[in-house]
């Protein structure tokens, strides 16, 4: 048996990579990808906990998370397209006019 902690560490690493991507990447679509990575990391930890508790609840929640991730990806991409149309750029640093 692979111990629970292994799964959790993998999940944590994935989450960290995803967060790093959100903060550090200079392309809007790559940022969305990183958000997906974060969501999948969470899915992994849910399933792991579910498996080790002996129920299928973890997997049920994962369904919900994936549904939400899909919807959110659709909306996010629509926003990216709209943003691109105004600024001709996918760099998040190009959209700083709402400042003091």
């Amino acid at each position, binding site marked *: 048996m692979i111990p629970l902690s292994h799964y959790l560490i993998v999940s944590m690493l994935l989450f960290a990579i995803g*967060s790093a991507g*959100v*903060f550090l990447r200079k392309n809007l679509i790559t940022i969305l990808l990183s958000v997906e990575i974060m969501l999948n990391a969470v899915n992994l930890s849910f399933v792991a906990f579910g498996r080790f508790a002996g129920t299928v609840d973890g997997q049920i929640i994962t369904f919900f998370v994936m549904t939400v991730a899909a919807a959110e990806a659709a909306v996010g991409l629509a926003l990216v397209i709209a943003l691109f149309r105004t600024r001709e750029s996918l760099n*998040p*640093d190009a*959209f*700083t006019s*709402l*400042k*003091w």
Partner: protein
Amino acid sequence: MLALIPLLPFAGFLINATMGRRLPKSVSGGLASLVMLLSFAVSAMSVWQLAAMAPDQRLITQALYQWIASGDFTIDVTLLVDPLSAVMILVITGIGSLIHIYSTAYMHDETDSEFARYFSYLNLFASFMLVLVLGSSFPVLFVGWEGVGLCSYLLIGFWFKKKSAADAGKKAFVVNRIGDYAFLLGMFGLFAMFGTLEFRGVAEKVAGLPPEAGFGLLSIATLLLFVGATGKSAQIPLFVWLPDAMEGPTPVSALIHAATMVTAGVYMIGRNAVLFSHTPETMQIVAVIGAATALMAGTIGLVQNDIKRVLAYSTVSQLGLMFLAMGVGAFGAGIFHLFTHAFFKALLFLGSGAVIHALHGEQDVRNMGGLKKYLPVTYWTFVIGSLALAGVPGLAGFFSKDELLFETFKDGHQILWFVGAFASLLTAIYMGRLVFLTFHGSRRHDAPAPVSAHASAAHGAHDAHGGGHGGHGHDAHPHDAPPAMAFVLIVLAIGSVLAGYLGVPHGLGGHNELGAWLAPSFAAPITAGAAPVVAEGPAGEAGAEGAEGAEETSLELTLMGVSSALAIGGILIAGFIWISRRALAASIAARFAPIYTLLLHKYFVDEVYDASIVRPLETVSREGLWRTVDVGLIDGAVNGVGSIVDGSSTVLRRLQTGSVRTYAGSIFAGVVLVLGYYLWR
């Protein structure tokens, strides 16, 4: 029925205040005088009723309503007439009515609305004064006390567009207020000690105590009451408002500042005779201050050049003598002098009003003279008033002044007697000076046309008529008082002669009716079983009737002779200087120039008060309270809150960088913090 006495003038006030503007002058003036006469009639009826009772039962009360009910503490509004109030209400309504009648002629040049306003204030004043003397407890008296102070302010500042008049009104009110504050403290003290503020209640409780040795709580309370009296009755140290009060119309000076309001302090002490008798320390202070004021005011009156100022200082001086009488325990003598003084002082003020009226606003005696042949009625009534004031035998002032001086001497206060006698000498001198300068000699008032006379401030002429005389041309002869004024002058002159005969002392074969009438008022109320405790030194000879020895009579006659000599001597001195040798006055003034300046500037009391009290208060208020507290602290706090918000928002808005990545980072950081906190716990 007693309630009618103050209510009638109050009704007059209401009518004139609300509708007076639209009423013609004859109606508003006539109505005001009518209510006063009706009040006089009711007062006379009450006194008649009182006189029909047995001497030690003379008391009529009328409970009106319960004013304050707070737990155990109740104050009822009750009116009370006893011999003392009887004298007061007759004086107030009687002389008040005469002055109202006089005013209808004197104020004739005012507009309809101003005329009505004047009479509304005058009626209000009478109403409050009557409340003051009819009240049966301190709070009711105090209502009247404050009310007359208010009316004094309103009437002194009647021509409020003139700055000096408005200032004088303010000064009177503020100085009165200081006295009233002390009066309130005295009332609190009395309540704390006795649990009641009814006059009869306090007298009963005090009668059971021995006279206080030394300066204890009771003495402090009565001293505070006396300080209140010094404010109202213009004694040292709070007399400074009375000379300035001459800015008001002359009938106002006659009514308020001669006959009635200023006598409130004397009345108050008389009303609480039993209480004051039990505090010999305070009585001593009262007597000394009375004598000192009499002397000081007498010396100032000697050199003043404004006819009304001389009379004002004379009033202060005579009030001093009244307080001297009250202070040595001669309550009846003090009230007797109050009674006679009301007549001749009102007469003198009204007479001076007639002179001012005739000369179209001239008030400086240096610009008068030779009026004897043009103003005969005014002249002769003024002379009678002056002789009465000086204390010439046969007229009213002689009997009353003599009685109080005799009582002072008899009780062992020889120094005070001497001061009082000297003040009387000064009275005779300055009244002689006033008469001779105003009426005798050659005409000095043929100054150019009234227009420039009004404008010539150099002569120190106060335009007491508010410019109403601009329309008169320059008369070749001044005209004597019109009928309404002349009638009043004559009635008061008769009073000045006859009023004294109510108190002819036993030494001269009389029965001192007034003293006997007043005596029960100064005795403690008779409680069941207890013998009546008579206040120390009761009214005149009434208490000592049986024990009148030949020695006392001869002492009295001697002193009578001395005061008559002083009075006549003073008039002769004045005649010598101001009729025959005018230059002598000027040369004496030049020789004793420092003293003359001191007297002319009223001992610089106003300047001293200004420098020591008014200026520091102003500075503290302006620099301390206004600049530091109001502008600095309060405004600073409010503005400070605003600027703090402003400053912090300037700093905080930099959080809005506009960069999405920064926002995401901060969200993440927040999540980490919150989770970390809960996990750590």
